[in-house]
């Protein structure tokens, strides 16, 4: 479903040149959930943003469904992959009511005014339909993240990109959001890429895990290996040890 070859991202020029992602390649099968784990600054979010089409400076190739996509995406290409961001406070426009936030994707795609889909989208993520009239600041963090998920799903993308979707949330709310994501993934047959620094979340959600350090993948773990604590690189062993004190 997703194929990435030799993805390379560099920010800045000359002295301030910062080689963030160093030629990574990976594939994600249809319906699979891939996890990318690493510490801050390792380049994991940049990989995800490049996949989404938010970075403009990468080289290499990215293809969805066998078709290569470029840096500037057409509407059809954009509809293939949508993203859920880390910060539920920053990912919803503070002056747009929830109903508008959910209708915007449909309107931007030129598919009508989108109001007909809003109530259903809210119900899908377990929120009451009355929320359409609320502003984001009237919602809790978990509720906002549900809205963000609903917004990402409203265009029915086959691929969902998740950038630390629960790291700003409390543990109990995190559980609710992760369950919701798991349900939607199953129900809609989504292909997911989840980026997080939290090995527990990654291990819970993902079929396969890539460990990233300094712009490169240093290890690849399956769900079973993760459960048994098997690693193939020193870095991932240290990371797992440090994560579960």
């Amino acid at each position: 479903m997703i194929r990435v070859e030799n993805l390379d991202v560099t920010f800045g020029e000359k002295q301030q040149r910062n080689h963030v992602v160093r030629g990574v390649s990976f594939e994600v099968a249809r319906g699979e959930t891939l996890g990318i784990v690493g510490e801050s600054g390792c380049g994991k979010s940049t990989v995800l943003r490049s996949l989404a089409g938010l970075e403009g400076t990468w080289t290499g190739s990215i293809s969805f469904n066998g078709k290569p996509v470029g840096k500037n995406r057409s509407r059809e290409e954009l509809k293939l992959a949508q993203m859920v961001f880390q910060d539920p406070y920053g990912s919803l426009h503070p002056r747009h009511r929830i109903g508008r936030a959910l209708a915007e994707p449909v309107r931007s795609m030129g598919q009508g005014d989108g109001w007909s889909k809003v109530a259903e989208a809210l119900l899908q993520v377990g929120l009451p339909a009355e929320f359409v009239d609320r502003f984001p600041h009237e919602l809790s963090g978990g509720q906002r993240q549900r809205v963000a998920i609903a917004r990402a799903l409203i265009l029915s993308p086959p691929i969902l990109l998740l950038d630390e979707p629960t790291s700003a949330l409390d543990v109990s709310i995190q559980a609710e959001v992760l369950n919701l994501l798991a349900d939607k993934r199953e129900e809609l047959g989504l292909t997911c890429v989840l980026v997080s620094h939290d090995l527990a979340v990654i291990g819970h959600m993902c079929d396969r895990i890539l460990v990233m350090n300094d712009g490169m993948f240093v290890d690849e773990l399956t769900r079973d290996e993760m459960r048994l604590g098997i690693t193939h690189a020193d870095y991932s062993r240290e990371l797992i040890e440090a994560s579960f004190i």
Partner: protein
Amino acid sequence: MPDHDPATVLSVRGLNVRFGRNAIAAVSDVSFDVGRERIGIVGESGSGKSTTGRAIMRLLPQKASISADRMHLNGEELLEKTEREMGRLRGKDLALIMQDPRYSLNPVLTIGRQIAESARLHLGSGKKDALIHARSMLERVRIKDPDRVLGLYPHQISGGMGQRVMIAMMLLAKPKLVIADEPTSALDVSVRKDVLDLLDELVRENDSGLILISHDIRMVSAFCERIMVMYAGRVVEVLSRMEDAQHPYTRGLIAAMPDPKHPVRRLNVLDRAQIEAEVGR
């Protein structure tokens, strides 16, 4: 103070904190003792865990009203102290380590100046002594190249190093009680353990009490002798091991954490109605 037990550093009885005209107290009827030990306060956001820590330090905004039957530090009543006396106590007998070192260090002063300043303030050492002191403290928190770091500004150092510097600064005066409010949640997992170990080592060395405030019950239970679980401003349970949890909230919290070693398809979520019933009982 006749009833003062020298092993007890801090003794709090019936602490209440209310913000402004809010009907609901942010902290209600919290009582605990801290000896020369490590005690953890665990809870989710809004549980009142940070507010409790700040109430002890008297670092809450003006509109907060604090009341307590008793709040003794080494047998002295903190509630009777004037603002000026509290200012002298903070940093000397009481230390607070906050979540993000980037916001707790002064951005326009070098690390060396800041630590030296704190040495001069609390230890009364001269200018030269203070700098020597600062250097030895940096060595103490295992910073490899202390002379270089002394001349750096806060934005030039990493989060982990920043937190070490904070610890060095806070523990310089050998405080009786250290309150660490989410000291590692802004740090990467690999440095988390180092910072906690360091904190532990220094607290033991100074024979002080430590209150570790965190949302991460696993980390707290690995690190602290006693765990105080807070929910909606109240202490619901005090544990010595995470596994002994009885209260439905604590159990729900533990069950809600994903654990790769025991994979489940769906995580348990808190049954809030049941917990409300339990807490209100």
